């Protein structure tokens, strides 16, 4: 009996103008959205390839360990085509320095090449599904009971042995089997557009992600059908039901996310990052002062009143590269690094305390926004979609956490190899070839070389040396993707969506039990 009514509704729906309009909407909007998203992904990939090649080139040119600054370039995930999440708001790369914790990615963000076009309204596949499917679900369900009541068919149906719960389940199924094909068609069409592009391939894990996204979309669709059914069961007239449905749609899809966004900012205030930068500058100044004191102390230890360099490149972040310097200078730097680099790490920890506080503030704000937006099923769906597509804030923060863990690994490598205490940290020159100040002056006087006219041994020049073999330096890598991680992360939200659907189902059963069929 349930199937009979569901089938009847399915046939009537198929021949209705709303089905045709809904199908045509999907046929127009889905390909357009996917073409735009694929284009955006291809741009991101081009940027990624260029950035990665540059990073590799720099890596291959490193000649001293103090220059080891791995540049991490985040590869855009193909699933980002389906749900962009926060990808466009964030950068794509960062240079990892031992003296600071990686906070956020910098580099190329997914903004448009032409900033004047930023006002252009661009949405991804998951947003289109969230908007279109909720609208279609409400359009098909708002008059589910009211129309049967108005047309008098409900009375006739209830003169047969159809119970109210069977009727309700049948009506629900009737819409589900009408709209799921449209949803499936949308997924197949969008996947085809992606798959037919030779530059994009999906891994098996990504395929599972797409399938999971489809299943969650069905769940989302069902929730909106149940919302429409609840409205229909509470309304006596279709005209009332359509107004309430449309208002609910606008409220759930557009107002709740906006309210959540602004409320989270009001509830959880974050100080501007400039304040954090000020604290970091203070610590930098303190570190610089201590370094200066150490500088004098080591000079005294070595009995020199200045540090002369023949060929020196360096920066405030700990990078030093020098050749042809006298033994005293090299020893000075070795001793300075032995103290300074662990101290730099200590100061990085101190700076991280400020940065983490700020980051925690961001996370808290985002968390409040997420929780508040759970009032909207579309937001829950979007959060699940971005989690499954690994473009959610949580995915991003996990990625940043992995970079910080990698930094720890790199530090352990430096410490294990005692690189801070070594000459190799800042020069490739053989320590046996270091000349003392006295010896240099002696040799210069003897005319062995002439520093004034740059007549010096070739090993005093950086170009004399080949880049370091950094094969044994730990490389940054993210563990092989598996769907269980994304699934675990989205499990709570999926359960929430199911719970919402179940609650709505119970509400609609309870309301419809008392529905006046006359």
């Amino acid at each position, binding site marked *: 009996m349930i199937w009979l009514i569901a089938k009847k509704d399915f046939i009537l729906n198929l021949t209705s103008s709303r089905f045709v309009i809904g199908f045509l909407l999907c046929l127009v909007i889905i390909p357009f959205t996917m073409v735009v998203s694929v284009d955006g992904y291809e741009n991101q990939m081009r940027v990624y390839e260029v950035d990665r090649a540059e990073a590799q080139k720099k890596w291959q040119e490193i000649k001293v360990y103090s220059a080891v600054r791995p540049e991490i370039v985040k590869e855009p995930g193909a699933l980002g085509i389906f749900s962009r999440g926060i990808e466009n708001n964030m950068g794509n790369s960062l240079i990892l320095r031992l003296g600071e914790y990686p906070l956020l990615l910098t580099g190329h963000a997914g903004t448009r090449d032409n900033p004047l076009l930023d006002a252009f309204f661009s949405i991804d596949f998951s947003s289109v599904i969230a908007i279109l499917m909720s609208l279609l679900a409400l359009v098909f369900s708002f008059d589910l009971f009211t129309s049967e009541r108005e047309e*008098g068919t409900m*009375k*006739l149906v209830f003169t047969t042995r159809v119970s109210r719960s069977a009727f309700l389940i049948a009506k629900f199924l009737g819409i589900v089997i009408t709209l799921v094909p449209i949803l499936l068609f949308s997924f197949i069409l969008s996947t085809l557009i992606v798959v037919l592009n030779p530059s994009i391939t999906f891994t098996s894990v990504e395929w599972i992600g797409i399938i999971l996204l489809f299943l969650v979309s069905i769940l989302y669709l069902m929730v909106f059908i149940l919302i429409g059914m609840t409205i229909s069961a509470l309304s006596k007239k279709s005209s009332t039901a359509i107004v309430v449905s449309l208002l609910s749609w606008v409220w759930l899809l557009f107002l709740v996310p906006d309210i959540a966004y602004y409320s989270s900012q009001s509830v959880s205030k974050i100080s501007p990052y400039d304040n954090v930068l000020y604290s970091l500058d203070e610590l930098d100044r303190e570190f610089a002062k201590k370094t200066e004191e150490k500088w004098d102390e080591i000079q005294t230890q070595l009995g020199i009143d200045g540090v002369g360099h023949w060929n020196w490149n360096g920066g405030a972040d700990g990078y030093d590269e020098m050749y042809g310097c006298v033994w005293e200078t090299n020893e000075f730097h070795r001793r300075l690094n032995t103290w300074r680099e662990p101290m730099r790490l200590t100061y990085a920890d101190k700076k991280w305390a400020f940065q983490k506080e700020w980051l925690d503030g961001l996370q808290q704000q985002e968390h409040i926004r997420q929780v508040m937006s759970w009032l909207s099923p579309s937001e829950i769906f979007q959060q699940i979609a971005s989690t499954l597509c690994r473009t959610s804030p949580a995915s991003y923060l996990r990625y940043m956490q992995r970079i910080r863990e990698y930094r720890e690994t790199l530090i352990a490598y430096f410490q294990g190899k005692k690189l801070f205490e070594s000459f190799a940290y800042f020069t490739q020159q053989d320590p046996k070839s270091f000349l003392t100040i006295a010896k240099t002056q002696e040799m210069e006087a003897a005319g062995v070389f002439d520093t004034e006219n740059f007549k010096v041994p070739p090993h005093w020049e950086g170009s004399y040396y080949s880049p370091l073999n950094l094969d044994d330096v730990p490389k940054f890598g993210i563990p092989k993707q598996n769907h269980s991680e994304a699934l675990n992360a989205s499990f709570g939200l999926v359960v929430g969506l199911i719970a919402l659907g179940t609650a709505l189902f119970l509400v609609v059963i309870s309301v419809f039990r008392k529905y006046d069929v006359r």
Partner: protein
Amino acid sequence: MLQAVELTKRYEDGHLALDSLNLEIKPGEIFFLLGANGAGKTTTINLFLNFIEPTYGKLTINGIDVVKQPLLTKQYVSYVSENVMLYGNFSARQNLDFFARLGGKSNLTRKDYYNVMRSVGLQEDAFEKKLKTFSKGMRQKVGLAIAILKDADNVILDEPTSGLDPKSASELMQILTNLRNKGKSILMCTHDIFRAKTVADRVGIMKEGRLVMLRSREEFLQDDLEKIYLHYMQEAVMFDDANLNS
């Protein structure tokens, strides 16, 4: 058999729609329930079909309690409403097929549907036409065909002749007579006193939720049913006027 004992219905707003109604429609009987608008005729039907629940009293269909076993009783009753709407985008045959299957008859052929539609006087060329193109009379015939197809022991009709042309109304009465001859209990609520005189076995007049008059065919043929009916209606009108003036 349809039976109501001490049937009372008071709506949430306090209005007493039915007041201790006792009614019994036997197999092979056509019972016409007459009365003005708001007399309680449709409430009685709604109670028999379990669309609403009684405040007090008992209702049975074929001896089965309607309130306790509503789904079971529904297999023994067919219903034809005043305005048969059905599914406009389905053809007459598709509507018949749907409701026949809902009624548990899934082995009927297209020929069976056509035969029933012929029996209620629907034109052949309308069988496969969408119902939204049908006139009220044609829809009424399809509604009747659905009731016939269900082949239930009891048939309840709510103002079925309202808006029908005389020919169609006359055909409907013939169909009801045939059903009565097959042993069906027929309850028809109507204002149509002329049709009552033609086919009713018994007639009841309702007023303000109470059955104020009950006559067998022999009795109402002897009496002037029209006069009696108008008498009760007149009282009702006078009562309404008095209410308005007070």
